[in-house]
């Protein structure tokens, strides 16, 4: 039940989470915000970036901040599914009889760091499918529930593609967000070097527990979504399909396969969290436009024309937003998180100018 206390607690915990993560991770505010939003919304995150930009450190910090059991699985080509899920082993009991006993794999944790996930074979990658979606693991016909909350935070390197296995669409779809981790800026780089010269130790402290995280999720789920806003969100997802009735011109030209219904669910869930995080009690178009990039970019399959023209998924998402909202979207990456709901008031005066620029014209709008 949402009440004044739960709202206040949400705000305080958000502020505390960001504060603690900032102690370990310099910069990368957009990535941190995206990851936290996904975790509160109950989604898995795929972090893509070149080596050394802090992907693994961020995930480790999150494990500490949320005070949850954390497992790291280094994906390699010879990693087997059983190495992830666990397997039945033969043990002898006191009487000397041999029996099967399930030895849980590293997946039986709350936060899983699937490092360099694209280096494992599709067979091993697929071992995560059930865990990521149903939060259960089935071994030898026996399904076992995973601990809640459960997250898979995977990383992959976009550059070194030799000996890698691109994630199948089914697995990609199970990641709520795909976040691009950029190289740090000059000031951030100076801070990182300065900090690591003193100590490499991670100093982030627990900001909230798993139970509290689930409460935050429940609170965020109560955020209302106006019918028009919901329609816009679904139109946004549907517009990525070249064959749908809402297909955008960009999708028709560059997309072979659009986003699945999971994208719509993810968009709304994440938008609710973002709205509350930004001090609003309703989902706004701006939430959807910001979150469209991490939600949709890995769910679209480009066609040959897009590859030949080097058109990226983010470009197409930008075009779709522009087509639907009638105004050019800002930078693809989500804006930096505000620490708390109370400290993040909306700024109507500034945004008024933007509001005048374009008129929303997404499909199905009702007068």
């Amino acid at each position, binding site marked *: 039940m949402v009440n004044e206390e739960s709202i206040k607690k949400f705000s305080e915990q958000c502020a505390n989470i960001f504060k603690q993560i900032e102690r370990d991770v310099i910069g990368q505010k957009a990535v941190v915000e995206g990851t936290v939003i996904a975790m509160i919304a109950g989604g898995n995150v795929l972090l893509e970036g070149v080596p050394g930009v802090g992907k693994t450190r961020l995930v480790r910090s999150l494990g500490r901040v949320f005070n949850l059991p954390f497992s790291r699985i280094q994906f390699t080509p010879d990693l087997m599914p059983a190495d992830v899920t666990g397997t039945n082993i033969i043990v002898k009991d006191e009487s000397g009889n041999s029996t099967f006993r399930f030895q849980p794999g590293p997946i039986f944790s709350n936060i899983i760091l699937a490092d360099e996930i694209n280096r494992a074979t599709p067979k091993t990658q697929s071992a995560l499918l059930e865990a990521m979606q149903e939060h259960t693991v089935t071994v030898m016909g026996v399904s076992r529930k995973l601990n809640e909350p459960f997250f898979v935070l995977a990383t992959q390197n976009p550059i070194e593609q030799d000996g890698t296995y691109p994630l199948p669409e089914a697995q990609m779809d199970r990641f709520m967000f795909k976040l691009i981790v950029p190289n740090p800026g000059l000031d951030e780089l100076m801070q990182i070097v300065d900090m690591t010269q003193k100590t490499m130790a991670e100093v982030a402290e627990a900001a909230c527990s798993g139970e509290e995280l689930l409460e935050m999720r429940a609170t965020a789920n109560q955020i209302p979504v106006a*019918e028009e806003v919901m329609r816009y969100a679904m139109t946004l997802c549907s517009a990525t399909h070249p064959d749908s009735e809402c297909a955008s011109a960009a999708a028709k030209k560059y997309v072979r396969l659009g986003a699945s219904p999971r994208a719509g669910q993810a968009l709304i869930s994440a938008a609710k969290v973002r709205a509350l995080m930004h001090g609003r009690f309703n989902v706004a*178009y701006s939430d959807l436009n910001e979150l469209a990039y991490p939600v949709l970019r890995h769910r679209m399959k480009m066609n040959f024309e897009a590859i030949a023209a080097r058109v990226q998924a983010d470009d197409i998402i930008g075009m779709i937003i522009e087509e639907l909202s009638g105004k050019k979207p800002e930078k693809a990456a989500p804006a930096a998180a505000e620490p708390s709901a109370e400290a993040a008031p909306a700024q109507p005066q500034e945004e008024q100018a933007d509001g005048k620029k374009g008129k929303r014209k997404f499909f199905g709008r009702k007068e």
Partner: protein
Amino acid sequence: MQQLFRQYYNRIAREGWLKALVWGLAVGCAVFAVVAFVCWAVSFAAGVWIALGGGIAVAAAVTVALYFLKYRPTTKAIARRLDSLGLEERMITMAELQKDETYIAMRQREDAREKLRTVAPKQISYNVSALSISLAGSFGALAVAMGIVFGLTAMGLLPGGSEVLTPEDPTQFVLVVYSDSDGGSVSGETDQMVAVGSDTEPVLAVADDGYVFVQWSDGVTEPSRSDTNVQEPLFVFAEFVEMEEGDGDDSDSAEPGDDASDMPADESESTSPSDPTDGEDGGNGSAGGSANHDYVDEGNGQVYYQELMDKYYELAMEQLASGGEISDGLRAFLEAYFGSLA
């Protein structure tokens, strides 16, 4: 909710009326222009008032209909408009949740009301589409132009629409040729291009010395002619005959006009017998003229025009004195020689 939006309702309603009015003006002006054009085209002068009345009626009807069917602000429309001022869908959500009594809905309303306080009604600028303004402007200019055309036509400065749109057949011209033949010439414009139905310039058949005009080839006996109401091309030539000795006797019976061609071919010939002074010297004129009407010297074949003209003048005056009429050709011929006939 309605109370909350009341101050914004008036402004958005005014905007709605403005939008509807612009569209109404566009349609009204278009109707006026079309009706006015049709009335002008059929030269129906009173049509401008019908067009004006029709345009005003249509503009009013369209304005009212558009406002009530499309532009009258509803609660959601106001909420949507306010959200566009940077309220991030707080208003539309509040409008949808107005009957929801859950805590989160109440907090949402509270948050929305708080943000709404930062928005003054004046921040809602009137937003009229450029398309409607340009259409209204274009049709308005067209309507004004048609009004001006109507006015100028009424003042007679412009031809009527029916005249402009269905002009008469262009004027057709025909060629009229007055040709001469042996024994004389034709004085005046011999080749004339005249409009169908109009008259030709007068020409005169002038006989050479020793010749006399007989008639034109189409039977006209007057040496001077000007054809009226010409309908088709005409080619005629003057016919002359050489006078033989003794022909002067025949002239007694001739009509005065018939021999009019015996006038001098060239008035500049001061030495010719046609000079009025010639009549006073020598007695050639009198000798060959009044006594026996012999106007040709039998010895040298010279024609005594002075005598001839005097005879014609005398006959003409007698005709006039007796209350009769003389032909226009003869009158023109004599007046050219003697001045105005009394």
